[in-house]
């Protein structure tokens, strides 16, 4: 369990936030991100992805723990109150630790 253990932060939120969030994520120090389109249901109701306004995205960021928790708390403070959003974190083993 050396320095090739990083954090995987997963965010599920409204598609409308995509452009804003990736700016935040990069500004806070992440070296990259991966996005897939999603649908789902949570406390703020069902998001069916049937058209633009009702889709979700699922963003994954691999980074070291400090950056991950910085992103997490920034998102929590800025968006949790007004947007459909969840986030969760876990440890992942990476191959080239310097990259993240």
């Amino acid at each position, binding site marked *: 369990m050396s320095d090739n253990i990083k954090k995987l932060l997963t965010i599920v939120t*409204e598609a409308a936030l995509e452009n*804003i969030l990736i700016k935040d994520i990069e500004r806070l120090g992440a070296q990259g991100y991966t996005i897939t389109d999603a649908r789902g249901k949570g406390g703020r109701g069902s998001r069916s992805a*049937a058209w633009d*306004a009702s889709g979700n995205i699922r963003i994954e960021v691999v980074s070291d723990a400090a950056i991950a928790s910085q992103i997490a708390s920034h998102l929590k403070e800025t968006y949790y109150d007004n947007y459909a959003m969840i986030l969760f974190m876990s440890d992942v083993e990476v191959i080239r630790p310097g990259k993240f």
Partner: protein
Amino acid sequence: MIDPVILFFIFGLSAGLLRSELRLPPAIYDLVSIMLLLTIGMKGGIELAKQPFLELLPQMLVVIALGIVLPLIAFPLLRYLGRFSRVDAASIAAHYGSVSMGTFAVAVAYMSARGIYYEEQMPLFVVMLEIPAILVGIVIAKGFSKQTNWAQVGHEVLLGKSIILMIGGLLIGWIAGEEQLASIKPLFFDLFKGILALFLLEMGLITSKHVGSLKKYGPFLIVFGISMPMLSAVLGASTGCLLGFSVGGTAMLAILAASASYIAVPAAMRISVPEANPTLSLAASLGITFPFNVVIGIPIYYAMAEYIHAFFGA
């Protein structure tokens, strides 16, 4: 006789309410909207090319003023009669101050099916009307707050998908002219009503999802969703008459004023006034006003335009 494209809307709405599996892939919804917006833009551009642009400037200013006045009327109704929170009232007001491309497309089909003339600059007015209400809505909700990133709002609004497609279409139509565009006519012009039918099928399906959330918000939203467009139509028709438009053009401006946005404004509000509940405004504009306008409203507003012309026109 009801226009067949409206039957597609009713079909979509029924299928959605019956919880059928039917849905259009999002990519198709996108294609269909893109084609409608481009075609409407090009139609306008072709006509605009035929007249001097400068004469339109004063009209454009009046139309912008209409776009500022409408949300300012809607807001107090929502805030004090409807008892909505400041941000929710501001957001709904912005939806009703702005316009709906879908409604405009149905109106275009309605007029052309009846051979009714209307002034060519209407697509330009659609663009003019879409924007001011958004800005007014943000200012009502937040004041001239420093927090608002106006550059971003401007970008979002001016370069949003629907505005850019309509402006692009306008410019292409303007530059190329009718004759040149003959080669792409089979796709964009001849298929227009069929594409509109597919669009309305999907709009019916989407609307069906919003009808449900109406129950939650009580009868005020339903009343507002029908009476506000009527009021706006009166203002729109009066403005049209004042500007010396034909009956068709007067009706068109009434229809534009009566329509409520469900694409550009929700997107802008989501980013700029996130505290506003998007379900609320969509339930009203999509669940009530859009179906009311396309099924019943358009002929009413046309009658309104005739009436106003009979009294004040000529």
